[in-house]
C-alpha cells in the first residue's frame, strides 16, 4: 500500500497561486475557503531584501492531531495515509481546527452555500454540481484530491503548478520522485516540534 505525501520545492515556487485556483476549481470551494495557500515572506533590509513563497496545505500527518480530537469520528486516515473528513459524520465543532498546528482546517459556513459566490442567493451551475459534496457547517480540509488519486491522477494543485514546485507521490517507494528529492536535498518538515510527523516536506 502506498503512503502518499508531497514535496514543495521552494526554489521553484514563483508565488503565482495557480495551485490555489486549481484547488478551488477542483473542490468547488465557497468564497473565502482555501485548502491550499501560497504564503509569502519578505526578509532582509533594503537593498538586500528577499522574498520567499511557502506553499501550504494539509500535511496529512502520520500522527494527525485533528483525528485524535475529533469527537464524532468524522476525521480518519485512509490506509494510503490520506487524512479524510466524512461530511456525513462531521458536526462542525471545530475541535480539529484548533488542534491543527498548521491552521489548515476550513469552516464551510452554511451562509456561503446559500449566498453563492456572487452573494445573490442564486447558485451558479459550477456551485450546484460542487456543493453537494459538503455538509453546510462542516469543518473540512484538503484530501490530496483523493478522487483524482484513486483514479491514478495527481492532485489538482500539482498538475496546475507551472514550475513543478509541487511533487506528489508514494513516500514508501524509494524510487518515487518525492522520496528521491527528500533523500537528495534533505526535506524539512513544518513545525517538527509539534510531533505530528507531516507527510509534506519542504526543500530549498
Amino acid at each position, binding site marked *: 500500500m502506498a503512503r502518499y505525501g508531497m514535496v514543495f520545492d521552494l526554489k521553484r515556487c514563483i508565488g503565482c497561486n495557480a495551485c490555489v485556483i486549481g484547488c478551488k476549481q477542483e473542490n468547488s470551494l465557497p468564497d473565502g475557503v482555501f485548502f491550499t495557500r501560497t504564503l509569502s*515572506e519578505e526578509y532582509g533590509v533594503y537593498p538586500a531584501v528577499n522574498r520567499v513563497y511557502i506553499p501550504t496545505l494539509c500535511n496529512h500527518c502520520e500522527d494527525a492531531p485533528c483525528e485524535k480530537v475529533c469527537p464524532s469520528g468524522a476525521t480518519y486516515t485512509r490506509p494510503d495515509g490520506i487524512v479524510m473528513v466524512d461530511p456525513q459524520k462531521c458536526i462542525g465543532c471545530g475541535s480539529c481546527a484548533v488542534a*491543527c*498546528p498548521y491552521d489548515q482546517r476550513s469552516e464551510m459556513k452554511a451562509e456561503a452555500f446559500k449566498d453563492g459566490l456572487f452573494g445573490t442567493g442564486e447558485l451558479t451551475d459550477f456551485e450546484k454540481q460542487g456543493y453537494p459534496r459538503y455538509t453546510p457547517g462542516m*469543518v473540512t480540509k484538503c484530501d490530496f484530491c483523493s478522487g483524482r488519486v484513486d483514479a491514478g491522477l495527481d492532485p489538482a494543485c500539482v498538475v496546475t503548478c507551472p514550475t513543478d514546485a509541487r511533487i506528489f507521490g508514494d513516500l514508501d517507494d524509494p524510487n518515487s520522485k518525492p522520496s528521491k528529492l527528500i533523500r537528495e536535498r534533505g526535506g524539512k518538515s513544518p513545525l517538527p516540534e509539534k510531533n505530528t510527523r507531516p507527510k509534506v516536506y519542504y526543500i530549498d
Partner: protein
Amino acid sequence: MAVNDLPIVGDSFKLGFRLQRYWDTPMASAFFFGELGAGLFFVSLLLESNRGMLAGLLITGLLKTYFHLSHMGVPQKSWRAILRPDRSWISRGLIGIVCFMGFGGLHLLEVWGLIPGFGGLLTLLAGAAALVVMTYQGFAMSHSTAISLWNSGLIPVSSLAYSATAGVMVLLAAAPESAQLMVPAALILHLCVAVILLSLLHAARHGSPGARKSVELLTRTLYAKWFFVLVCGAGVLLPVLLLWFAGSVPLATMIAATGTLAGYYTFRLLIFKAGVFEPIMSFRP
C-alpha cells in the same frame, strides 16, 4: 528580525502568526456557563444548598447546551460528539455532562424525598460528574499542541479554580448569611486564581514564539486593556478587597460576585481570542 517579530497576518497569504478564530464567543460562553453551573452545583452539594444545586443544573443544562448548539456548524448531528471517548476530551466531557445532569437531577429528587435514598451513592456520583464538567474543558484545550498558550497543564487547573470560585461567589451573593464560612474560602480561591493567572503568563512568556505572542496580545497590545481591567481588576483585585474589608455586607458580596463573574467570562473569552497559530517556518536569520 527573528520569528518573534513576525506580524499577525489574519487570513492573508502572508507568513506570520494567525489568530485562532474557530472557537469564539459562543464557545467561550458555553465553557463559562458549563464551569459556572458545575462549580455552583459542587459548592452547593458540599454546603447542602438545594437551591444552589438546582441553579447549577439549570445553568449547565440550559445555557451551556444553548451556546454549544449555537456554536456547532451542524447542530442536528451534535449527538455524534459522544462517540469517541477513547480519544476526544469533547466526547468525555459530553458523557460527563450527561452523567452530571442525570445524577445531579436524581440527587435533588432524593433530597426532596421524591425517590428513595441510595445511601449517599448519588451524592458521590453527582459530585464526581460535577468535577468532570468543571475540568474537562481545560483538558480539551490543553490537549492541543497547536496553540501554545493553551498547551499547558495550568489550563485545566484554571478551569477548576475559576469554576469553584464562581460557585462560591454566586452562593455567597445569594445567601450572605453563610458569609462567615464562605468569605475565607472565597479569598483563598481568588488568591489561587491570581497565582494561576501569573503562572500561566509566566510559563507562556518563556515558551514558544506563539505563546510569547499570546502573552504580548494579553498584556501589551490588542487585549491588554480588557485583561488588566476586567480579568485582573474586576475579577480578582476588586473581590479580594471587598471581601477583605466588607465580606459580610450583602451589597459588597453582590458587587464582588459580579466582578468575579465578569473577570471570569472575560478570561474565558480572551484565552480563546489570544490563541495563535505559529508560522510554519521562517527564513529570517
